């Protein structure tokens, strides 16, 4: 298990957003988290790289282990944690910089200044998201000139440049059309060979298509966690069935 939570609870002030979550996420799989709006799935995702720390009044109890290390321990290096656990957001948030500088941004922060090394990182990262052959002659152009799908790929490449282990994806395709969504999904299936992917999605068909394991959340609780095959053919809990069959949500 690369990620494990035990009795995880999270409160926004007096609001109990995550309730006693026990979860084990395996390496090199795509784990999908599904559930209706407000069920806590994005909150859960943000726990894994401590993004919730930025929100005032957040209180967390229970354990969250990544590679067997407690990420809330005082000795946990937050910057290292966020390098190891990168995040892709709903909107492709390319920086207003060149394509090259977007990818080189992270490695430069980590002290890499040698041009040849940076160039190698940019090439490898763009190639990993199947963009290098398309963009190799336009690396100095602004990243903002790319299509939404290309920008989302660029954002994924920017994460890969700092060599993470886990990719958190929060509705990564919700701003994309179906063709672009299909391409990003295919990319995720390639990337899982090297990375562990945790994706939050409103689109349960997407979870059905690409996830190996799926967790269904409702009102802050993890109702069911199982293989995608089990969840989508024979879920154990009636609430999961009602949600995936469109009876509510």
């Amino acid at each position, binding site marked *: 298990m690369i990620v494990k939570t035990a009795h995880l609870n999270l409160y926004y002030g007096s609001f109990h957003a995550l309730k006693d979550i026990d979860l084990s996420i395996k390496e090199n799989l795509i784990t999908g988290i599904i559930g209706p709006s407000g069920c806590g799935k994005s909150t859960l995702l943000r726990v894994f790289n401590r993004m919730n720390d930025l929100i005032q009044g957040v209180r967390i109890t229970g354990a969250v282990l990544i590679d067997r290390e407690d990420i809330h321990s005082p000795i946990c290096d937050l910057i290292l944690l966020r390098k190891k656990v990168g995040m892709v957001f709903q909107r492709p948030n390319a920086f207003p910089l060149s394509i090259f500088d977007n990818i080189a941004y992270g490695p430069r922060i980590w002290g890499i200044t040698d041009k040849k090394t940076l160039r190698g990182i940019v090439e490898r990262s763009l190639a990993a998201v*199947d963009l290098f052959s398309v963009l190799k002659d336009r690396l100095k152009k602004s990243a903002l000139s790319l299509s939404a799908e290309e920008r989302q790929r660029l954002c994924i490449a920017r994460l890969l440049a700092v060599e993470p282990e886990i990719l958190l994806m929060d509705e990564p395709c919700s701003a994309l059309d179906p063709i672009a969504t*299909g*391409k990003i*999904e*295919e*990319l995720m*299936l*390639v990337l899982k060979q090297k990375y562990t992917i945790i994706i939050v999605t409103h689109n349960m*068909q997407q979870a*059905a*298509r*690409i996830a190996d394991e799926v967790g269904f959340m409702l009102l802050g609780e993890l109702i069911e966690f199982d293989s*995608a*095959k089990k969840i*989508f*053919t024979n879920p154990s809990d009636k609430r999961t069935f009602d949600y995936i069959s469109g009876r509510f949500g």
Partner: protein
Amino acid sequence: MDRHFDEELQKVKKNLLEMASLVDESITKALEALKNRDLKMASEVKEIDHRIDRFEIAIEDQCIELIARHQPVGTDLRFLIGVIKMNNDLERMGDHAVNITGSVAFLIEQPRIKPVSNIWSMVVEVKKMLNDSVKSFMNNDAEMAQQVCERDNVVDEMRDETMRILLTYMLEQPDKIGSAIPLLLVAKNLERIADLTTNICEDVIYIAQARVIKHHAEEQK
């Protein structure tokens, strides 16, 4: 980038082709067992049937999972629905091969009768139909599938002729009825295998061209 889903469909196709090859093997061995009155070979057919049964469950499981997870449409949907039906047909063919071997133990006790050449001609035709139906599926070839369907009448005629010959034989030599009845059942099983082969070809045409030809559906439109 190729669709990951296409790879999954290819895996289903590969499994179905492996299953079809086992069915072919079981029919061949069943008829050899019958010809040579070989009980050991008859029991091998039962073993192969267990493997065919396991394939049936696995393929059905794969198809259900892919339908549930990918909501396929168009050709992909027709392919999976067609495979589910062919899977069932192939499994039934395996059962017919076992039925054929059911006569072997009984025949050992009986005197040999004059060989019924029609049965062996039926065997050749049915096996060819099966092989061509599998080829038509492999190559998504509706034209070839259509030709196989048309050959079903030939097998039906062979079955009728075999029945006539055997009935006459039994009337003429009632003491050989015990030897002739199992052969009647063999002819019946072979004819059913040919029918199931035709079903496979109807599904190939449905997958390739979205045409339903069974029960003369197109003529009734």
